[in-house]
């Protein structure tokens, strides 16, 4: 009887392997621990959200990876940022209508991992930035709204403009105006900036490029 039961379960497991489904995912890079609470807090009028999973491999492969690294100005880590890492982003809904996006990324800090979460409007402009996790002895400074609110209103074009303005003191450089809130954790500050920029680049690749939205801003930013 036990053998029959075990065999029956094996058949069920095999059936699972061949069951229908829209898509198969690899490990998810950074999903929200509590999306309901976070989305309700950031978008009080929201009534729901739709989780979307995708990867660089799925959206464009090596050419897209090269574009992302070029915009980031840095190589992606082959382990925790590899081309097949799945990213979860959330389309925030009010009824059936989309009213924003939420997307998180993992970033390597000085003392351990951090998870940088951005909420944007439909045009890719940041409406909220927060850490789901930050392994820093000065985490309180990084989580302080006085710091995170400095990202509100920025979009990817501001980061690309910042890259173009390196070495100058352009008053329009909004990213350059963001101050390190820590006393001894500058590495975590730089990791945070990289995390926010990477988050916006990936969100642009996954969402806005298909719509011709933020990508237009990118091109404008690149021209400046």
């Amino acid at each position, binding site marked *: 009887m036990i053998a029959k*039961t075990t065999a029956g379960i094996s058949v069920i497991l095999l059936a699972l392997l061949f069951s229908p489904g829209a898509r*198969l995912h690899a490990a998810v890079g950074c999903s929200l621990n509590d999306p309901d609470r976070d989305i309700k807090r950031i978008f009080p009028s929201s009534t729901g959200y739709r989780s979307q999973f995708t990867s660089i491999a799925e959206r464009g492969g090596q050419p897209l990876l090269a574009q992302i690294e070029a915009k980031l100005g840095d190589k992606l880590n082959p382990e925790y940022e590899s081309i097949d890492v799945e990213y979860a982003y959330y389309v925030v809904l009010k009824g059936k209508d989309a009213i924003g996006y939420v997307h998180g990324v993992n970033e390597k800090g000085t003392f351990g991992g951090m998870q940088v979460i951005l909420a944007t409007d439909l045009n890719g402009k940041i409406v909220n930035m*927060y850490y789901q996790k930050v392994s820093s002895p000065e985490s309180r400074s990084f989580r302080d709204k006085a710091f995170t609110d400095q990202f509100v209103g920025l979009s990817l074009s501001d980061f690309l403009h910042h890259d173009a303005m390196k070495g100058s003191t352009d008053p329009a450089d909004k990213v350059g105006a963001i101050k390190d809130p820590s006393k001894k954790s500058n590495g975590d500050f730089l990791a945070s900036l990289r995390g926010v920029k990477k988050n916006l680049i990936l969100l642009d690749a996954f969402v806005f490029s298909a719509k011709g939205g933020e990508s237009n801003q990118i091109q404008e930013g690149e021209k400046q």
Partner: protein
Amino acid sequence: MTIEREADCGTGIIYRNGGFNRASKTGLIAFFITLCAASPALPADYALYKEVDLIGGYSSSEHWLGNSMSQMNSLGMEYFQRFSNDYGDYLTCDFQARVAYDSVEPFGDAWAVEVHNAWAEYNLGLGKKLIAGHFAPAFGLEPLVDTHGTLLQTLASMNIGFKDDWGVGFSDTLGGYDYRLAAQLGSGMSIQRRDSSGLLTARIGTPAAEDFQYGLSLLYGKTLEAMGMGTFPRPELAQGGAVLKKRVGLDAQYLFGSYLFKGEGVYGENDSAQVAGALVEVDYTVPDLQELKMLLQGSSWDDDLSKRNTESILLSAGLEYQVNKDLALRALCSTSTLSNNDLQEEQVFLQVYYFAPF
């Protein structure tokens, strides 16, 4: 750890005098899989993973070991699926099972199918969720931390007797806090009900994204004590029937730089005996080699506070190295003391753990 809840799958749990028959058990599993896997008319995303858990150890009293308290040599899989419509996500399902082999047992008795996660969670609106299936009781650290593949565990097995149980649950937010409630069978991994067994648990705590998290838990119910771990074949029960348990517990986690501190404390009764337990753990991520973690844990459990020498103490030190995103190597040394028979035992474990998409 994946958080669990569900739709109306759990209503398929039906009691019989003395427990479930085999047909109803298989039917319950099949019901989950049917709901979660075969709805081609619904837009759905799914993930499918394979798992290999290899473990070996040595004990000063029992010599070579083929399993730890929580891990056995096993092959496993996990199936995760989410359903959405025009108004957003409304249903999430997870099924996680292993075929485990205990090298210490005779070959014919060494095999077991372990069902770990088997739940479906239905979204009743932002924050409100209903879950049914096999999931962690709403008590202590266990529903918050992922111990599925790790050598270090929470107090759940000592306290409740198991990590997951079959039943239904509900979760929601209450101001700045999250709470969850669960009503379960009290049988753990196997599906059975005897001696009016059943388990009610509740936990309220701070949200999961804060550096400092804490929670308060309550438990009431009669739980069954199985002689082994497994869903199929169903393990034999300890003699003496169900144990009436009452508990109150506090738990906390604090992330500070490279250190993650965890702790929980429990007080209550087993039938008429007063019991208490505590656990403290420190995880340290090496800043210059963040794939490497050093772990220290101490736990104690007292089965009867009114008597002497009823306490057990376990001290553990471990290393965990994440080779890549799919593969982890773990080592653990522990010393345990059972004061009632003055037994002290040292153990060493090595584990290779692989978890990757198909």
